[in-house]
């Protein structure tokens, strides 16, 4: 088991999401940057959907009570194992009593910790992803104990992945959303030329952007939304729904982020800038 000595700013158990309950309003949840999770799980020979820890901004301090193999991915948070720096995208053996801690956030915003065989968290409605009130809690707390299977040794097929860090990219790839047609020439010009920045209101539910474009008076009936849906409010505010976002909404859905763009946006924090790039 993994003992949580300090939980960090916001750390939660996530897999790739809770499918098949969106028709009763349950968000899909799951890792915000699913691409980083898949890489870590693959290096460990796990299923890509195996539960990991999603670590936001400031990392936790964790102690392993049995040997296993881990892999770190996503935002680089200067991690150490027993005070020795360790690398990302690399299969690392840990022993009983080892302490993993995190330091300075160097890039990105969300880091992942995967363990051989995945964390053994309670599955609710087909997923271990923490989302209140579907799961009893929304995140892990100091003193929590998270189960995993002890593994004495593991020979990975590939022990290390060379990855180019792409979190600095400012280009957010988008498709036209269902209400794209309501946009005026001025709104379109602003949308695809302006630099937008992530506002303080950013979390697993949604990212609001600081800059506005012209508003609208288009009235529509509530309809389905997705992670990555960009909503335009009547006052011209842009809201990008994320993994814990509502399943339906009444604001025009002007753009839809690509799956890769959702992962990239998940690595942006307050004040980071971005540009929308339309494809399709």
């Amino acid at each position, binding site marked *: 088991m993994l003992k949580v000595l300090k939980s960090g700013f916001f750390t939660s158990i996530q897999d790739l999401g809770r499918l098949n309950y*969106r028709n009763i*309003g349950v*968000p899909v949840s799951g890792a915000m940057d699913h691409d980083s999770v898949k890489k870590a799980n693959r290096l460990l020979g796990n299923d890509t959907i195996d539960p990991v820890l999603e670590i936001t901004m400031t990392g936790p301090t964790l102690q392993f009570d049995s040997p296993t193999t881990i892999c770190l991915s996503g935002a680089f948070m200067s991690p150490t194992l027993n005070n020795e720096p360790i690398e990302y995208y690399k299969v690392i053996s840990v022993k009983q009593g080892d302490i993993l801690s995190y330091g300075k956030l160097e890039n990105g915003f969300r880091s992942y910790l995967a363990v051989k065989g995945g964390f053994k968290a309670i599955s609710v409605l087909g997923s271990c992803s923490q989302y209140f*009130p579907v799961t009893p809690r929304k995140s892990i707390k100091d003193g929590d104990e998270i189960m995993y299977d002890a593994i004495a040794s593991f020979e990975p097929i590939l022990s290390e992945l060379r990855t180019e860090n792409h979190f600095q990219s400012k280009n957010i790839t988008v498709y036209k959303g*269902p209400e794209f047609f309501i946009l005026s020439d001025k709104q379109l010009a602003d949308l695809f030329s302006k630099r937008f920045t992530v506002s303080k209101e950013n979390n697993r539910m949604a990212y609001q952007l600081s800059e506005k474009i012209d508003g609208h008076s288009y009235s529509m009936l509530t*309809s389905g*939304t*997705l992670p990555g849906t960009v909503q335009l409010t009547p006052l011209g505010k842009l809201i990008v729904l994320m993994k814990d976002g509502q399943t*339906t909404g009444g604001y025009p859905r002007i753009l839809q982020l690509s*799956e890769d763009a959702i992962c990239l946006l998940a690595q942006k924090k307050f004040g980071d800038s971005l540009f929308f790039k339309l494809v399709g």
Partner: protein
Amino acid sequence: MKKYPISIKPFGERAILIEWPNKVDEAILEDILLFVKSFKKLEIPGWETIPAYSSILMVSNAEISDFPKLEKTLLDCYIRMNKSETRAQRFLWKLPVCYDDEFAIDLAETTNYLNLSASALIESHTSCEYTVFGIGFLPGFMYLGGLPKTLEIPRRKEPRLHVDKGSVGLAGKQTGIYPQDSPGGWNIIGSCPIPIFNATKETPCFVNVGDRIKFQSVSRAEYDLRKIEGEVGIYNLEKTEIDA
């Protein structure tokens, strides 16, 4: 047999949106539910269907590689579906609501605005059958249609940071139940003791889009009893199948 002009649009890499005419209309909702049922019969794996008002969002668990082919499958499904044979099953649920002052924190303001007595408001709110046009916003939050005009009141100017789970509210043309503690701007006129959403149940939400809801005014004593039943998960709700 009447068919609507429907539009099928790609929505990102994994979803499509099917839209019916943009209206709040029972007949359209029925057509949508029938389509969902017919699509499920095709047993194409990996799809979620999210109906709401006049649209269905369909989400695939994989990237959609051939949109034109999928569009044809869906159109064929729509053209072939047969209304008389496969009507979707729908239920009318009777839900208890306690309108006592303790829960109905905005009742005085609301009756004042609507120029109704409290008993007239309760009489009016409990006399209608409301259709569930969608479930979203929060797990188990029902978008209910069919509120009488006499109960239309704008949402509160300042939303509350905390509204209790079970609170029954009015806002614009809508009435509804908060399925969990949440911030909210609706005018609260009562409380429903039955949990609308319970993740530990095999069917976490007993209501489906297309069902109807009728509220029944209950005393504080009955509210307390139903609340305990709800908490331990044994409650029998009165339901009847809707035909025609």
